[in-house]
């Protein structure tokens, strides 16, 4: 089947699958809402002075005692929960997407090199990947975050915290891309078209870039989609544990942490709505990834 034929086939399968349509729409709406937050959020939740204690602990607008200005109620300081969720989702997604892009790039490069070169490079890289894979993501991420905190005490501020999180999550996730791409590269490298390119005098890096890379991309895309859900979850967990995003620029995980600390004062909306947003986002991405895996059906290690 030609490249074009494959693509239209995927498009048709997409339109026909309710699972794909619903999950993709859900994910796109959430992503759009997050990145358009400055335009659609009714309040600016993290600018001091833009909210007042007078409005604190208001229930959602649809409940008795609610205020129509605050759709999902307000927190202990009078911040609008709905706006906080929009901005929080933006931070969660930014960390997740950046971690996925970074780990996919590094993992693919390492996988290509290990598969193409073989020998000692291959053996060492794959042993390292094995060891990393045998430990839980959250543990390694916590250690990285702890070390970063000790070495750079300023790393707890907004931008630096994002960078630490991206690194802490990526250090685990590159291994999956590397293993899969390596396996695929080993197969491709023995095929006739690569031999033909080699005989025609095409250089090594050009063979990797122009010939092998396009053929290993479909498993990379599938892993990336599934890993986006995992990365968003990992970020949320770290922020919930108090070693991720600080309360001054909170992600969904930070919002849930703050809400959890006030669980017993009865203001459940401060924790339930951010948690629902997180679960919805992860569920949509997971379902879409699930469908994509079945549709593209790549060889995954």
């Amino acid at each position: 089947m030609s490249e074009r034929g494959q693509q239209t086939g995927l498009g048709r399968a997409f339109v026909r699958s309710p699972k794909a349509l619903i999950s993709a729409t859900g994910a796109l709406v959430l992503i759009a809402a997050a990145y358009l937050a400055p335009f659609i959020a009714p309040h600016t939740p993290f600018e001091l002075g833009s909210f007042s204690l007078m409005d604190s602990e208001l229930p959602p607008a649809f409940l008795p005692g609610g205020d129509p200005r605050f759709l999902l109620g307000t927190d202990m300081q009078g911040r609008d929960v709905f706006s906080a969720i929009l901005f929080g989702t933006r931070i969660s997604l930014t960390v997740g997407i950046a971690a996925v892009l970074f780990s996919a790039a590094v993992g693919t490069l390492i996988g290509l090199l290990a598969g193409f070169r073989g020998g000692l490079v291959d053996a060492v890289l794959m042993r390292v990947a094995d060891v990393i894979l045998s430990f839980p993501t959250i543990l390694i991420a916590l250690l990285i975050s702890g070390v970063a905190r000790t070495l750079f005490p300023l790393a707890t501020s907004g931008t630096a915290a994002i960078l630490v999180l991206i690194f802490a999550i990526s250090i685990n996730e590159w291994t999956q891309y590397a293993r899969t791409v390596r396996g695929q590269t080993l197969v491709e490298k023995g095929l006739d078209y690569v031999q033909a390119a080699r005989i025609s005098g095409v250089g090594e890096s050009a063979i990797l870039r122009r010939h092998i890379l396009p053929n290993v991309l479909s498993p990379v895309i599938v892993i990336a989609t599934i890993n986006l859900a995992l990365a968003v979850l990992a970020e949320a967990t770290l922020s919930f544990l108090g070693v991720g995003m600080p309360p001054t620029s909170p992600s969904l995980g930070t919002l849930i942490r703050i809400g959890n600390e006030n669980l017993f004062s009865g203001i459940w909306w401060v924790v339930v709505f951010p948690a629902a947003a997180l679960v919805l986002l992860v569920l949509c991405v997971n379902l879409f990834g699930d469908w994509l895996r079945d549709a593209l059906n790549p060889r995954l290690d």
Partner: protein
Amino acid sequence: MIGFIVRRLAQALVVMAAIALISFLMFRYVGDPVAVMAREDASVTERQELREKLGLDRPVVVQFVDFIGRVVQGDLGISYRNQRPVADLIKERLPATLELVMMATLLSLAIGIPLGVITAVNRTGWLPTLVQSVSLVGISVPTFVTGIMLILVFAVTLRWLPSFGRGDTVQIGWWTTGLLTISGLKALILPSLTLALYQMTLIMRLVRAEMIEVLSSDYVRFARARGLPARMIHYKLALKNALMPVITITGMQIGGLIAFAVVTETVFQWPGLGLLFIQAVSFADVPVMAAYLLLVGLLFVVLNALVDIAYLVLDPRLRTRAS
């Protein structure tokens, strides 16, 4: 076979040495031990004396060997935050985590195995569909959200169960147990359920897959032909053979559960190793972080090696391949 075991153990030793090295580097170079341990107003000479007393002026290799020697003897350094030996802190916190993990494992087996059998036996109908959809939603709900929702329902709203701590504990030697008091048992319910949910899906799927395979085998068909009751075929004959991989995976997962308990322990303020570790991470308490890394690393390396060797001993087919 002996060759394989020796090679596997050598490999485990190399990984363990690497973990020890990382742990040592953290201990030695992340933060300055002298700055943390010296008094605020210590003079330069006092600091120098402390540096020599701690052996920080000697070659790095000698310090690493020293570090290993001390660790083997159970000396894991002094916590910066509590100013107490790390080994004592770990000994205090270990029972809480082990009881939590043990209870979670029992729960996940007790619920996961029957669900797996049921969904394998009736492959159509509303129940398997329901279980399948719930488990798909389940993997999208992070542990801490599950925990918070359980607290919201059973502790805040219904007020049936406590939301934090271990309840009353009983001291047996150096071990503290919450299993012998009513309040201790009640306190264990929500955290162990939260931790178990993560593993339950895995066990259910595994039992289902194994059962489907076993149910299509000849001896099950023969038992059916003989007219044995379905209940006996499913639970006595088939399940017995489907359980082998479940036991191995459950054993392997115990390491993962201990690491994962970090999240559960934070949600429920359960005074175990995980909470100790997360507090160490927040307060940059490097000796505790390094010790936790060593401990969990050792656990993982040992469990992984044991599983590989066990497979080899149990499955003769692998023996020829390995040699």
